């Protein structure tokens, strides 16, 4: 790429300087969060907000768990996210299979119905869904937090696209070998689309874990707040406890950081495949 005709060493050094400067720009906000999480809030302000930690309180993370109920919020988030990811995978795979491999009356209509949900994100239907939950007494419940997300057009499209990549002759071969639909789905179609399914799981996890608007309004009790919603209030009632909130934000981001590090390939593929729902 670097096709500079001047001194290559100088050009390389220049790129490193630029890349480092950009890294600083991206990482500075994160640094500030860590810094503020570790510093005693009042002392930090008293010292004129320097760029280094003041009176580091390393036990702030433990405090967040013990006093701010962070463990409960994380647990609820984990539960809600797991349910959403697993069920979304199941409903998407089944629906994608029907659209990719089966012929049936009203196929078009049903496909349009799936496409149509792209116009109905939870932000649009928020008010009405909250009222539904109120009527069903599902506010502050696991089903209330998960049910609206048990199926996703994005997943259906993505996995259907993967299934359509299974060669026709392979399907013929499976037919002759005596495969039934379910066996073909689980033994051939799914294993062959593993990369796409992996990407979908990662993206689905990302979306479910990061949700804010729905869990914010599908709950009105603090004990039912997911970790993202809890971030709003943890420690913000008192300035001297602000660092607990900052620490909680770090903890809330850790699972995704792990996801990014260990499943970078899947994440990149999923995001670029059509980040309809970033």
């Amino acid at each position, binding site marked *: 790429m670097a096709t500079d005709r001047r001194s290559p060493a100088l050009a390389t050094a220049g790129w490193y300087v630029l890349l480092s400067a950009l890294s600083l720009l991206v990482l500075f906000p994160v640094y500030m969060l860590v810094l503020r999480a570790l510093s005693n809030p009042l002392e930090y302000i008293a010292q004129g907000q320097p760029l280094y930690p003041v009176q580091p309180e390393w036990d702030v993370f433990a405090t967040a768990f013990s006093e701010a109920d962070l463990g409960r919020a994380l647990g609820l988030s984990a539960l809600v996210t797991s349910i959403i990811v697993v069920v979304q995978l199941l409903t998407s795979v089944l629906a994608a299979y029907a659209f990719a491999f089966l012929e049936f009356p009203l196929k078009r209509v049903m496909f349009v119905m799936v496409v149509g949900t792209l116009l109905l994100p939870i932000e649009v239907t928020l*008010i009405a869904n909250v009222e539904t939950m109120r009527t069903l007494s599902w506010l502050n419940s696991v089903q209330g937090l998960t*049910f609206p997300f048990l199926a996703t057009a994005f997943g259906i499209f993505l996995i259907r696209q993967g299934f359509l990549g299974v060669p026709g*002759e392979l399907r013929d071969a499976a037919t002759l070998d005596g495969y039934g639909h379910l066996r073909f789905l689980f033994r051939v179609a799914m294993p062959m689309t593993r990369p796409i399914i992996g990407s979908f799981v990662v993206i689905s996890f990302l979306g479910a874990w990061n949700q804010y608007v729905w869990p914010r309004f599908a709950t009105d009790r603090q004990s039912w707040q997911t970790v993202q919603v809890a*971030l709003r209030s943890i420690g913000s009632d008192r300035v001297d406890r602000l660092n607990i909130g900052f620490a909680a*934000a770090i903890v809330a981001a850790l699972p995704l950081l792990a996801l990014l590090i260990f499943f970078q390939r899947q994440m*990149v593929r999923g995001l670029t495949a059509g980040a309809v729902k970033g």
Partner: protein
Amino acid sequence: MTDLPGAEAGAEDLVRAAPTAPLGPRSGDGRRRLRDALMAYLFLLPALVTFAVFAYYPLYRLFWYATHRQPRFRNRPPTYVGFSQLWDSLTSRDFAQGLLHSATFMLYTVPLGLVLGVVLAVAAHRRLRGIKVFQTIFSSTVATSVAVASVVFFTLVNPEVGYFRNVTWLSLNDPTSAMFAVSLSSVWQNLGLTFIVVLAALQAVPEELNEAALLDGFGPVRRFFRVTVPLISPALLFLAIVLVIHALQAYAQIEILTGGGPAGSTETLLYKIADPKNIRSLDLKAGLSIGLFVLTGLVAFVQYTLLSRRVHYGD
């Protein structure tokens, strides 16, 4: 999918290429066809029920709420007042204001987000030792949620305790700068996504094209604008649309950073719909939701037309 084979194409090839050929013969006998159809409906049921209950029924309810007046007392049923009430919602000050604020938010986040994403991607798209480290750093903000990003920016722009509390053009206390400060948190949070998508697009540009342009005597800048930008334009378009949708759906950053203030200057359309302080009537919020629905539809329409026009570039 159901098109009959054309005259010039061999029926054989078409059938072999047909993406929808089921297990078993394509044109099955009655019983097999029935069995396949039943299976398809069974497979689609969970998804379609979810969509019906939590997407389509709510849409109907939005129209219902928007055309009914809620009773003063809980024990009386709502009364139908007609579409004039929906019209009133859509011509209300709340809607106009929310729309303006959402548009402002878009204006701040979309172009800046795109440009920064391209800058990061171009900088990190080269063969250098350790480039993976930089690429990981630039992608890192995909690991942050809107809520986490908002807490991060809380440490920067909060009027009492933020690092930049004295920087006037980032002040959350000033109605003219508050939205910009909130927008920055979104720009930062979206950096990872834009970087990843643009980098992937850059990596898909064939090396020969750059080499050919080099041989044609184009300098690096002209090469970038003449060769690279046109080739990654589908990705940029895609990103622009994603960022517009993100802007329409911005909520957490506003609640956490400003609570809609100062003086309602950061109340976007969705913020007014969500209405955390519960000061608006259900029918008004339903009306605003329908407005948001229409906007979402417009974006989808634009996306569809643009993508179908540029489809030859895509992928």
